[in-house]
């Protein structure tokens, strides 16, 4: 099912949680709503499920306007952050419950629930109570319960945040597998960029209730629309050098360095931010854009990372393992085109 959101807005008293949100989720897509805490991603999810009423705007499921349709009539399956499995019911009863409400005959109910349990690989534990299951198993039951009524849309609220690191890796693959096997349009909320990038077809990045960028993970990383997108994604985070444009080139704030930028959109005198992904730096003695002094070094297994001073600003760069560098050494840095971005200092917009 295709989901279309038009001018979606949510206000709580005076605070605007989601502001004029427009977006289309295509049929069968797995989409991540990504953003820092309080960006409105969960609010958006709750409006899609119908739990939260919409302040302004419209939600369409295919061609139906469901803006004012109550949750139970929307045909959505919802997986809560802490799963909300009924503690007094067994796994089977939990999965059966949505069908029980729909007055599906008992035999059919159990047959369907068992099928679902097989899909999420929890069929060994049908007689157990939720508290006798691990977090990952509870998550599987919650997904099975959400899917058993064959919803048009599956919504997951921070599905992995209650799991430990190892289970998290396992469950995110599982969510991907289950989603692909059922083909249900799925939207999940996360604040973890890695989670979003690893399994989703599309990422919706939000901040302060505003949509920042919608695209697949790689595009989001390689071609950020603004400074926030560039700095939110990536680990280690993107470097930022503050400066201005002079003669079409980037000049560091204190005037100590000049970097050539082949960007026809820059204006003379414009204050800008030069975003440089750490992997877009290359140590090169012959040909270089920046001269820097090593301030601190970190060895992280196969790579060596260093904080270096460029003028009076600090950036992270990868050191080559061929040489032994010491703190205080001068290094020459060449910037790659890919992974270096110019942003307007005022608006944060990409230039």
């Amino acid at each position, binding site marked *: 099912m295709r989901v279309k959101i038009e001018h979606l807005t949510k206000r709580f008293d005076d605070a605007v949680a989601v502001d004029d949100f427009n977006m289309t989720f295509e049929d069968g897509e797995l989409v991540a709503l990504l953003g820092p805490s309080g960006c409105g991603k969960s609010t958006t999810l709750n409006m899609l*499920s*119908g*739990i939260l009423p919409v302040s302004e705007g419209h939600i369409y499921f295919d061609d139906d306007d469901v803006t004012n349709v109550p*949750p*139970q*009539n929307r045909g*959505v399956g*919802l997986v*809560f952050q*802490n799963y*909300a499995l*009924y*503690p*007094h*019911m067994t796994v089977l009863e939990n999965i059966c*419950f*949505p069908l*029980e*409400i*729909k007055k599906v005959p008992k035999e059919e109910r159990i047959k369907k629930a068992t099928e679902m349990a097989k899909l999420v690989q929890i069929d060994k534990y049908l007689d157990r109570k939720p508290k006798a299951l691990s977090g990952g198993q509870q998550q599987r039951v919650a997904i099975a319960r959400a899917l058993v*009524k064959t919803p048009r849309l599956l919504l997951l609220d921070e599905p992995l945040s209650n799991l430990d690191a190892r289970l998290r890796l396992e469950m995110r693959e599982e969510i991907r597998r289950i989603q692909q096997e059922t083909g249900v349009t799925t939207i999940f909320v996360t604040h973890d960029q890695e989670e979003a990038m690893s399994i989703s077809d599309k990422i919706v990045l939000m901040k302060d209730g505003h949509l920042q960028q919608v695209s697949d993970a790689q595009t989001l990383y390689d071609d950020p629309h603004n400074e926030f997108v560039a700095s939110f994604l990536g680990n280690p985070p993107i470097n930022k050098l503050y400066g201005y444009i002079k003669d079409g080139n980037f000049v560091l704030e204190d005037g100590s360095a000049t970097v050539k930028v082949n960007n026809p959109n820059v204006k003379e005198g414009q204050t800008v931010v030069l975003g440089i992904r750490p992997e877009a730096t290359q140590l090169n003695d012959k040909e270089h854009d920046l001269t820097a002094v090593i301030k601190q070094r970190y060895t992280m297994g196969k790579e060596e990372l260093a904080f270096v001073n460029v003028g009076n600003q600090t950036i992270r760069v990868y050191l080559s393992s061929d040489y032994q560098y010491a703190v205080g050494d001068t290094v020459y840095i060449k910037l790659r085109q890919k992974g270096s971005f110019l942003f307007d200092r005022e608006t944060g917009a990409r230039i």
Partner: protein
Amino acid sequence: MAKKNKNGSNDAIFNRKFEPLIYLIPFALGLVIFTLYPVVNVVIMSFKEGYRLSGAFTGVGFGNFTKVLGDKNFMTAIKNTFIYVFTVVPISTVLSVLIANLLNKKIKGIAFFHTAFFLPLVTSSIAVGLVFKYMFNRDIGVINTIITLFGGKPIDWLGAIAGTGPYNLAAVIIFGIWNIMPFTIILLLSGLQNIDPLYYTAAEVDGANSSTIFRRITVPLLMPTIFLTMIVNLISCFKVYNEVIPFWRGEAGVTGRNLYTMVYYIKEQFYTNRQLGRAAAASIILFLIIFVFTMLQRWIQSKVDN
């Protein structure tokens, strides 16, 4: 050196073991004097025949128990007490669950209803019993007024006219239910507030209506609290006494005998008849009955939990 160390550590163990006991003494002393001693003494008293407050008694044996169990009034007391317990506890539980569920909803003016339902808790049951006496009045009571309003015949709740005997007990039961509900509702309400509202949201998204949610989610999740209130109420209802006193000037029913309850019987044996041994024996029987039913209920609960 080694010996000194050993001694040192022994002192430490002594301190760790016995120091807390010293702090416990004031409380333990109170417990022994005011709780343990009377309980043990009642047991001893129940086996002393012809016991007087002076300490004199005529013999030791089961005489008090056989006398009490052979007493027609005690049988009336057991019958009345059982009827009282097995009407008041279930009815008040069901009503309290329904009302607590309503009070748990976020609606305007809920504070008014909270106050209204919890008012009996801060009133004296004897004082309110006197008010109820007038409400139960055959001719001018509000209860009969309502009954006649709906076309019923007025009931002589507290009277002695032949054929209205059972109404004496019914009046006590109605008053008992009213009296016990606020406490039950408070316990249930706190139980309800411990239920994660997310379960309701989850059920609503699945399309459950409020009666399904109540039946399939609320009540099962509230079950531990319901069992708790039932045990507490069972015990307190077996000890019914205050509810009988206001209606017939302190007498047990309109004839003075038809509304014996177990505690009323004990009190009468003790104060009126000065039969201290029999009063003690009746107390032991009451204790055993309560004990058996509490155990039974706990056993049922453990079955339900699994």
